[in-house]
């Protein structure tokens, strides 16, 4: 197992390198930090040349890449070309904000998804099963930004107008009320409700499907029958035997998803003005700010790789039948 982890970790180094080189090439080919300035007639040609030179953008691209890589490896994440701000704190803040949104959604989704999944497996072909299965498919099929839009309008405008409220029923954007000082938990939670709903609708749908399928497999298995035959009571059978086995795949899936979160929730963050990793990426991409895009990419890919590994390890721990060598 240790060897397996070491191998996976080592193999990911070339993956990271290739990913960063391709991303660098594409960013270079599609966007330039100078473009926005060039389209500003107030900026003279001389100023553009000075700017390009000052920022080293006139150096050959491979040199630019290697300079960035050298700094990155030495732990210097550098500063953004466009904003002149250090990249590290921006990514840290973005990651933190994204995680607030993402982890909340995951917790909500896992609780709901597992609950619904188990219940509909136990009561297979009941009305509840059909209802939850139907809702799950609906959740998987709904265009996110459309759903977000509808929620914003309903909770931000329609309901607020019907009840003649001065402030919206639920805030439609931002992480907390403007100008709020300190941490007001209620306020934070109110701001989380709509974006978390948008995200959870998808995740709950998926997790409840996983859970239901896993539970059904277990419920129809021989060993559960044996457990029952041994005279264990139904509750023990469910909790101790069925759930543990049914949830094993879900645990690793969830671990992978948490890793993937680092990439940001581009649509949700954009709509709800949530300053996370997705928004950070989009703006850096628009600016052709390769120093931010590349560092961003490395962090995100590293997250994905690490959490994939964690998923594998969890899987092996939970399911002793799996062996890696």
């Amino acid at each position, binding site marked *: 197992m240790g060897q397996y982890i070491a191998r996976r970790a080592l193999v990911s180094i070339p993956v990271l390198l290739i990913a960063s080189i391709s991303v660098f090439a594409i960013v270079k080919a599609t966007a330039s930090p100078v473009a926005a300035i060039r389209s500003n007639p107030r900026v003279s040609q001389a100023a553009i040349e000075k700017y390009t030179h000052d920022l080293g953008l006139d150096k050959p691209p491979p040199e630019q890449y290697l300079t960035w890589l050298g700094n990155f490896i030495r732990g210097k994440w550098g500063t953004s070309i466009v904003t002149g701000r250090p990249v590290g704190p921006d990514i840290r803040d973005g990651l933190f904000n994204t995680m607030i949104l993402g982890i909340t959604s995951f917790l909500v989704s896992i609780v709901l998804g597992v609950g619904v999944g188990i219940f509909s497996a136990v009561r297979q072909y009941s009305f509840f099963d059909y209802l939850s299965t139907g809702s799950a498919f609906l959740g*998987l099929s709904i*265009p996110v930004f*459309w759903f977000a839009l509808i929620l914003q309008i309903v909770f931000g405008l329609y309901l607020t107008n019907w009840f003649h409220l001065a402030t919206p029923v639920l805030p439609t954007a931002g992480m907390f009320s403007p100008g709020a000082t300190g941490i007001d938990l209620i306020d934070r939670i109110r701001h989380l409700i709509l974006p978390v709903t948008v995200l959870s609708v998808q*995740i709950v749908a998926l997790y409840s499907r996983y859970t239901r399928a896993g539970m059904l497999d277990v419920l129809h298995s021989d060993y559960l029958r044996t457990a029952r035959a041994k005279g264990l009571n139904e509750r023990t059978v469910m909790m101790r035997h069925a759930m543990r086995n049914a949830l094993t795949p879900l645990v690793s899936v969830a671990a992978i998803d948490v890793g*993937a979160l680092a*990439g940001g929730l581009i649509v949700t963050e954009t709509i709800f003005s949530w300053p996370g990793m997705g928004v950070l990426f989009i703006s850096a991409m628009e600016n052709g700010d390769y120093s931010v895009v590349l560092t961003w990419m490395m962090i995100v890919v590293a997250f994905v790789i690490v959490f994939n590994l964690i998923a594998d390890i969890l899987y092996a721990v939970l399911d002793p039948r799996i062996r890696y060598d």
Partner: protein
Amino acid sequence: MTDDIKSAHHPEIGELEIAAAELPDDTLARMGLDAVGASQWRIVWRRLLRHRLAIASFGILVLLGVIAVFANVFAPHGYATQYLSQQLRSPGAGHWLGTDTLGRDELSRLIYGGRISLAVGFGVALSAGVIGTIVGSLAGFYGGRLDTLLMRVTDLFLSIPLLVILIVAATLLGGSVLDIVIVLSIFFWMPLARIVRGSFLSLREKEFVEAARSVGASNFRIIVRHMLPNAIGPIIVNVTLAVAEAILIESVLSFLGFGIQPPTPTWGNMLAESRDLATTAPWLVWFPGLCILLTVLCVNFLGDGLRDAFDPTQDLIKR
């Protein structure tokens, strides 16, 4: 799973189906017990028929497909025809689903837009299906260094969030229908490649593959005639679900401004560009959204039905 989390390349539910492919022969034998004289397809079809929702969905999809293909017959107006005096009419006589900011008939635009959206969905699913199948087949069949190489490439593609690479690539290529189909296809094949590889790795050890080789079958023939048909279930399910995903992702790209560019109508860009009108001309937001929802829902139901139909263990569970 369309936006955000999907962008992480969720290990598809389909990946669990490797298990189904691992036991094709004896499980089929089990299936055969109640299906004497039927080919696999007939068995699958019969089992699919039992899945009423899937069949209903299939019917709706066929209907949508027919309307899309014969859009010029069904659409009451041209998709680009402008009635400038009738800007933003709400649904009613003359324009059943209202008009947009240029006085174009929303129903007609939905019909023509559906043509593009469905074409994108199917185009992406098919081409990504082909790529994924080829990559997975080669990796699973030849194994060794080729397998390692291809799987590292797959990992590479999988480790970057889907939406991110799509945005990057769409920026590079452009916003025509073909561009978007190409971009989506290039980044949609990985889950399928893994599934196919898994199937092939187990199929490779089957005696019937050795039997084929011993009568002189070429590698190509072995892959195409012997291994692929035994891995077809997961492939079909996956390709079907990819249709839904491609339609959704196209709409997300449109929302972010990287999708198919107007004036070519797609449900995605119609929805995206009227999002400012949600309160003033809600029909422009509701109808494209509902079209996407309905289509994707139907595809998902169909995919689910197919999954059950291809999954031999389902027989063990009493319906």
